[in-house]
């Protein structure tokens, strides 16, 4: 059985003017010790999905409309506020996108790590402190820097602190929301390597949110491609990288520079992501798709398994036309 099983998750942001349909009928699952990459453009609903798992959506305006999130067999959406707090930071923890702002600026970094350990660890303050020092050293920061404040750290080191904090309680599931986007390339590699190593040590599953397919290829076991709040294609690395089916996935690869082929220009996907408050009918991607047909504009494609473990949401793939 998989560790995390999301079924039909739908999250809307409801305001007076309109309803932003950020996440629509998303199915995902992650097995123990595995890494799932969630890939998509900015605004595709990746972070909202992640926050939904931890029930950290700001309400109002956010609202989890329907669906279930089975974690270890329990539906997180039905748990009490107290139980979900016991899970946050302990069983499921999160690395946030921007390390610059993710740490409390007026609290010593050691205390920020010890806080989460003390909360879930069933230990004394001294033991929590001890653990926080150990975690800092694990992520490659000298223990004596634990009494310093976030402004005394560089961006990469802050992200290490955030990672130390997220892994301090040995979570079963780590949600990493673009953990390397705010970092420069050399630091990116270091941080990714570290996350991978620590993940192996603690046998943690990971949901890696990114828009970088290179990172996905290096770190993930399975990939979900998200577009306009929906999973449009899902499969393991071979399915997605060697045999992509959905026109959007294919478009993503075409827009990447390649060393093998000598091309004059990259071919980006034309147009922009539709306004999530005003999504098109039928297939959400039909406004930008090269293979669009009349039916695409009217019929909402189903999420179909085209080969074992490889799901695609496309009418024309379903019909075998492309």
């Amino acid at each position, binding site marked *: 059985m998989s560790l995390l099983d999301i079924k039909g998750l739908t999250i809307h942001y409801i305001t007076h003017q309109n309803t932003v349909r950020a996440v629509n009928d998303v199915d995902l699952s992650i097995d123990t010790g595995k890494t799932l990459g969630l890939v998509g453009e900015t605004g595709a609903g990746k972070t909202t999905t992640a926050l939904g798992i*931890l029930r*950290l959506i700001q309400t109002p305006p956010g609202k989890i409309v329907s669906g279930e999130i089975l974690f270890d067999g329990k539906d997180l959406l039905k748990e009490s506020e107290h139980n979900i*707090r*016991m*899970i*946050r*930071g*302990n069983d499921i*923890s*999160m690395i*946030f996108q*921007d390390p610059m*702002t*993710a*740490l*409390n*600026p*007026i*609290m010593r970094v050691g205390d920020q790590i010890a*806080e*989460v350990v003390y*909360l*879930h660890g069933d230990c004394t303050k001294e033991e929590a402190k001890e653990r926080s020092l150990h975690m800092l050293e694990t992520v490659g920061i000298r223990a004596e820097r634990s009494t310093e*404040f976030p*402004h*005394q750290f560089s961006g990469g080191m802050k992200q290490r602190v*955030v990672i130390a*904090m997220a892994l301090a309680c040995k979570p079963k599931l780590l949600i990493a929301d673009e953990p390397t986007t705010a970092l420069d390339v050399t630091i990116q590699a270091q941080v990714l390597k570290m996350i991978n190593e620590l993940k192996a040590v603690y046998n943690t599953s990971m949901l890696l949110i990114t828009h970088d397919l290179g990172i996905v290829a290096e770190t993930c076991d399975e990939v979900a491609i998200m577009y306009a709040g929906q999973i449009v294609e899902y499969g393991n690395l071979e399915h997605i990288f060697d045999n992509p089916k959905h026109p959007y996935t294919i478009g993503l690869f075409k827009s990447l520079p390649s060393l093998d082929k000598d091309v004059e220009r990259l071919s980006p996907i034309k147009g922009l992501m539709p306004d999530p408050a005003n999504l098109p009918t039928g297939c959400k991607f039909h406004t930008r798709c090269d293979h669009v047909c009349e039916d695409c504009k009217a019929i909402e494609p189903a999420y179909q398994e085209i080969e074992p473990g490889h799901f695609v949401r496309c009418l024309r793939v379903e019909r075998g036309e492309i």
Partner: protein
Amino acid sequence: MIKYFIKRLLWTIPVMLGVLVVVFTITYFTPGDPVMTILGTGYTPERYAAMAHEFGLDKGYFGQIGSYIWNLISQGSFGKSFASNIPIAQEIAIRFPVTLKLALLSTFFVVIVGLPLGILSATKQYSAFDTSLTAVALILCAVPSFILALLSLILFGVKLRWLPISGLDTWKSWILPVATNALGGIAVLMRMTRTTMLEVIRQDYIRTARAKGLKESVVIRRHALQNCLIPVLTVIGSNLTMQLAGAIIIETIFNINGMGMYLMQGILARDYPVINGTVILIAFIVCVMNLAVDLLYALVDPRIKAQYTSGKRKAKAIRKLRSAKTEVE
């Protein structure tokens, strides 16, 4: 840090000298004559001249201000009151504690009422509680404290007879002055806390704190509150100094024998040493309060503390650079 403290303390000297010159100049050129006020009608020119000489009023502008400052620096003396002939310092020593107690009590209530209401208002944004509190706060901000004082005096003192209308004899008589003095401050602090809190609880690190599994109350107390203390401290500090200035009105209305009333009497009688002495003292307290607030900033926020010490580090680095240069030469 200590260097910064001393530097700031020394800065109060020119500030107070400036205040002194301004106040002295204004009182000097204000129409009215203290000698005539004291002698009343029917005095001889000789008596007038003798008294003016005694007060030092025959010396002209620069002579007067010069001797005032000289006395202040050489003897630490604020001079004697024209009317009562008692040293100003002695009079202030009796009255200042009353005013200070009033200001501290008011500020105490401003903090214990305004801060929690502001936090509640922010955490329950747009609720009925928040909206009604906002309406009340706007009214309280708009009504000047003397109107509030007079209205409450009429209602609770004269009509209902619940509370005494003047003096400070029992604990009951403190209620109206403290309340009317504090209400405006409560409204301002509440609005400030609400605004700052709303900004802070949308920050990423608050989401991080929530993702740790902390209780919402702990998130607010441990992570949000401390981060919104800077503007809140500013309001509290300026509130305390404003209370001192507001004491003039409140003490006059409630007939409280504090520094405010003393200043008021001094102004009415053209008793220049009284005016100068009290205003300088108030200016000094304002300076000290500002310094105290600035030091508290450093205590609350390590980033500000780093700024204070950076001057020292810079100086050290420069010294190092210089010594390296001389070595090369």
